[in-house]
């Protein structure tokens, strides 16, 4: 699916009536099966941008189009994966993964078949009956991914999904996500503040400025083949360029 963001801005109004601009003049397009990273310092509005695309917030101006149709509110074609606290603690792993299909009114057989398929894909087929609190942070995020994929969305939005994980698990999850992306060919929009993560994962990186967030530059990473070697010269070069963009942005 193709997703386009047109002239989007977002202004928050605080309790005292103060207007705080979070995003300004955002234009971008995301192609079919593309892996796009949105990168920026904390407070730059990258999460807000993702939440607007997810339909959880409304833009102040501008619009979002999915395959030429204007988006308003959450769409079943777009699923979101949150940083943490997203699994329902009262449901088992399997019951969590079927949730989307359940509210969409799919039959019990279809729900179970899809849930088992995607639990298998994330390598947790044997944890069906476990509860989220019995699992590690990395496993919980894999279940969140399986739950999102089970509804067969065209696009996945990921809001710093590995931000709460330790460095080792994080690297492992990045590699696994690459493999899942290759197998499922979803469009992925991935928000992160880690340059390394963005360069490792993305086809293109949208670098945002500090608040209010504007698009500073869109960096193409595609010339580095997957799986990426974090020590190869292309990787290091792109990484340095992105770091320069970010540090230049913060000294403005």
């Amino acid at each position, binding site marked *: 699916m193709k997703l386009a963001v047109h002239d989007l801005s977002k202004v928050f109004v605080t309790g005292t009536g103060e207007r705080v601009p979070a995003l300004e003049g955002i234009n971008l397009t995301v192609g079919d099966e593309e892996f796009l990273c949105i990168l920026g310092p904390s407070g730059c509005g990258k999460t807000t941008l993702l939440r607007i695309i997810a339909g959880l917030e409304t833009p102040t101006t501008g619009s979002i189009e999915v395959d030429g149709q204007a988006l308003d509110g959450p769409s079943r074609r777009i699923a*979101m994966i949150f940083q943490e606290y997203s699994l329902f*603690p009262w449901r088992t792993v399997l019951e969590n993964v079927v949730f989307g299909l359940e*509210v969409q009114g799919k039959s019990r057989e279809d729900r179970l078949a899809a849930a088992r398929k995607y639990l298998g894909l994330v390598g947790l087929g044997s944890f069906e009956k476990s509860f989220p609190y019995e699992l590690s942070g990395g496993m919980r995020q894999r279940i969140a991914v399986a739950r999102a994929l089970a509804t067969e969305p065209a696009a996945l939005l990921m809001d710093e999904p590995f931000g709460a994980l330790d460095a080792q698990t994080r690297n492992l999850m990045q590699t696994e996500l690459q493999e899942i992306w290759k197998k499922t060919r979803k469009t992925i929009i991935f928000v992160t503040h880690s340059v390394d993560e963005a360069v490792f994962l993305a086809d293109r990186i949208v670098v945002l400025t500090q608040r209010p967030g504007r698009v500073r530059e869109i960096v193409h990473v595609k010339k580095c083949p997957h799986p990426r070697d974090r020590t190869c010269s292309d990787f290091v070069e792109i990484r340095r360029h992105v770091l320069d963009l970010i540090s230049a942005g913060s000294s403005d």
Partner: protein
Amino acid sequence: MRRPLGIILPILILIFWEIAAQLINNQFILPRLETVIPVLLDPTVNILGTGSLLQNAALSLERVGAGFLVALAIAVPLGVGMGWSQRLDAFVDTTVQLFRPIPPLAWGPLAIAWFSVGINSMVFIIFLGAFFPILLNTIDGVRGIKRTWVEVAQTLGASEGQVLVKVVLPGAAPTIWTGLRVGFGIAWMCVIAAEWLPGTTTGLGYLTLYAYNYGQMHYTIAAMITIGIIGIAFDLLFRSVEDRWFAWRGLER
């Protein structure tokens, strides 16, 4: 270690009770253990024409059950609404705060005037006792729902009704359950006092007062102990359900 240590004091109290009862030697001030224990061990014997200990306990429980269920049926939906909608909360909260400090028993005269003597006035008082803890805990539980849970459901295509039924209710359930446990405990205390209202002729609460009027204090104490045992039993029942159903509580990650 806690339990063995905790059992020592009750045993000491029983021993001192018996010693004191023998020294005082007045059945009205403090009846001896051996007059109270047989009453508890034979709970089907008719006491002073009011029915047996078991029959009176069953009647008290029936009244509590009725008042508690009415409170549950009103307080849980209202609490979910107030926790979910700020407008409804703003509309109702002041009224709740005004009525809450009035002890349920203070409604006794009005209850009798409105519902006449009998079960309805007692159920009304019990209802008032159980209502507020259930309501306040339900509101708390709904407000404690993690926003991410609701947003996940929305992005997966859940309607507002589905969010309420599949996310808000189960997410708030542990706290609502705490409200039910506390509400039932208060309801149980209220029924005893409600049975002191004029016109009542049955129930454990009535029995405590009735036996006193006849100077049969060992029956009063036997009824008190029965009240305590039933109270503990229900509290344990609520807690065991809590442990089984809501093991995830406090472990949300």
